[in-house]
């Protein structure tokens, strides 16, 4: 089992400035799943109850000179502490930028590259070698090596399980609505946390999104209308236009044009932290049978309105049992 690659500048930038800060908010540890074509960060795919997130990168988006081999079809997966990886990358970035200031020659970046590889080492006071992901920066006069402890690589059966979970998580909801302003929504949801724990999310084919918290003493909600709809859509009957938000949503549910699920406010708020990855748009949808709330983030090729197929990020929020609230 071998893995060795160089992180490109773009890759470092994507991970250090955008994705790892977002993933760190979702959960402390995640699976890093490396294949011949993709590097995938997965949260909570095997152990059910938290926010599931999948951040997938084509190898070219992050690495060059990428070498991977394993007896399991060149697939390697392990768990890693996101915050440690982020810290390691941050410090290497600060080191290499220091060197970058010293070394003016443009061809010097080849000596100044960031290598990342899987190693087994004997830690101090241990008798058994442990696996590490090593991040190595070679500067002008010195090298900095950082070892990030990781779990034992997953067994063949576990990798199969992870791959299956990943495939299951790709199901798209039939209707997706585009969320207007993630940061504003985040602000609102953060304030909602004081009022209640359970969030009702309603999405309709008319382009309505409603999030509300409701207890016996208070109900507080935000409603967005006329959002861009992807997938199945419908026109709202004219007679509904002027009804209250609540009666419109119950009418559209009875017509089969809307769906509602309950999720944890905390989970919802965590998933909103994905805005740290600076997506160009975000879409929400409810999976068939209301099995989960899906959030899909889209990234454009810089300077265009074309979706960048080499990066993808989506989250799935577990739905609460209506009885348990």
């Amino acid at each position, binding site marked *: 089992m071998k893995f060795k690659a160089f992180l490109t500048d773009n890759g470092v930038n994507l991970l250090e400035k955008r994705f790892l800060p977002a993933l760190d908010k979702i959960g402390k540890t995640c699976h890093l799943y490396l294949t011949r074509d993709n590097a995938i960060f997965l949260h909570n795919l095997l152990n059910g109850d938290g926010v599931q997130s999948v951040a997938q990168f084509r190898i070219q988006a992050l690495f060059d000179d990428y070498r991977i081999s394993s007896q399991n079809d060149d697939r390697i997966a392990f768990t890693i502490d996101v915050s440690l990886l982020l810290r390691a990358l941050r410090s290497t970035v600060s080191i290499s930028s220091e060197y970058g200031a010293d070394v003016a020659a443009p061809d010097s970046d080849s000596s100044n590259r960031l290598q990342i590889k899987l190693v087994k080492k004997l830690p101090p006071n241990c008798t058994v070698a442990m696996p590490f992901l090593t991040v190595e920066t070679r500067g002008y006069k010195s090298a900095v090596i950082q070892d990030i402890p990781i779990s034992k690589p997953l067994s063949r059966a576990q990798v199969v399980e992870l791959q299956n979970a990943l495939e299951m998580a790709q199901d798209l909801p039939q209707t997706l609505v585009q969320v207007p302003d993630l940061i504003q929504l985040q602000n609102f949801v953060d304030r909602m946390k004081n009022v209640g724990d359970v969030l009702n999310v309603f999405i309709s084919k008319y382009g309505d999104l409603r999030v509300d918290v409701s207890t016996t*003493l*208070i*109900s507080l909600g935000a409603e967005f*209308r006329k959002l861009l709809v992807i997938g199945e859509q419908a026109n709202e009957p004219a007679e509904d236009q002027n009804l209250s938000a609540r009666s419109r949503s119950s009418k559209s549910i009875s017509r089969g044009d809307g769906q509602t699920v309950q999720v944890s406010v905390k989970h919802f708020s965590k998933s909103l932290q994905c805005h740290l990855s600076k997506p160009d748009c975000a879409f929400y949808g409810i999976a068939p049978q209301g099995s989960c709330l899906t959030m899909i983030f889209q990234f454009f090729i810089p300077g265009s309105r074309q979706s960048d197929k080499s990066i993808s990020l989506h989250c799935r929020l577990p739905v609460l049992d209506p009885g348990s609230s």
Partner: protein
Amino acid sequence: MSSWDEAPDVVCHLENVQGLVDVLTAARWKRHQFALLEFSEHGVVLIVEETACLQAKVYLKRDLFIRYDYNAHSRRRFGLSLGLFVDCLNAFSVPAHSNLIQIQYPGPQMQLLLKSVDSPDASICAEISTRIPETIAWDYNFEPAGANPLTFTVKSAALKEAIEDLEWPGSSIQIILEPDPPSVTLRGEGHGDLQIDFMYYANSDLLVAFQCDQRTSFKYKYKFLRATISNMPSSVLKENRGSKLSIGRGGMLKVQHLVSIAKPSVSHAYGGDPVGYQQSGRIAHIEFYVKPEESDD
């Protein structure tokens, strides 16, 4: 739903939600507090009290609202959770947005209804259940102690700092007014003594006004004194206003604050003169009444 067809008793529109949040936060000294809200043709009064020793009243005159429709014949009075009300209003306050909200009472189930009315395609709504108030708020009946009022005005930030410093001796705080030389002393005894003097002549920037013709001294529970100032949002303290303290008959202490709830001038980045928004009328009044522990005289 027939009640929707009739005009509700009160519909009002407010421009600066954050201002209202700040004012109400000042009267929020613990997590679960029951408040009495009263609408009348003159405006809104919110009353919070504790164990018949401490009462806060927040006055929001109708001029504070950009629209205030009052259709009832008598005062409308109901109880609600102050904490939920503040948390809920807070959700309407989005930084760097204008935050125009509508407050309406009653809803179909006697709720207080709140709604943002900025944009038809993105709105925030809330319904807060209300209840019938159990007791009529105790009337504190503040009367001057003698022919001349006993009163002083001190910079709110300085008062807050002094009262926070007095936390260390604890339990009860003595307030002493001395006519000659004119001074105010706050004194705590407990785990050690601490005395803070405001001398009128020496600290005229802190002690802004002073009126007293005889030595007066009363003791107040520390936690009640702290409640009168410690929850004042720092944005309000930065306005550098004064708080007026008066001692009435029997040592009843009245603490009055003025809080501006005008729109923050930062939100007028689109140019133009913000003078139109600096109406001096856009001031909310907060009054606290604190009963003394015992008489010294």
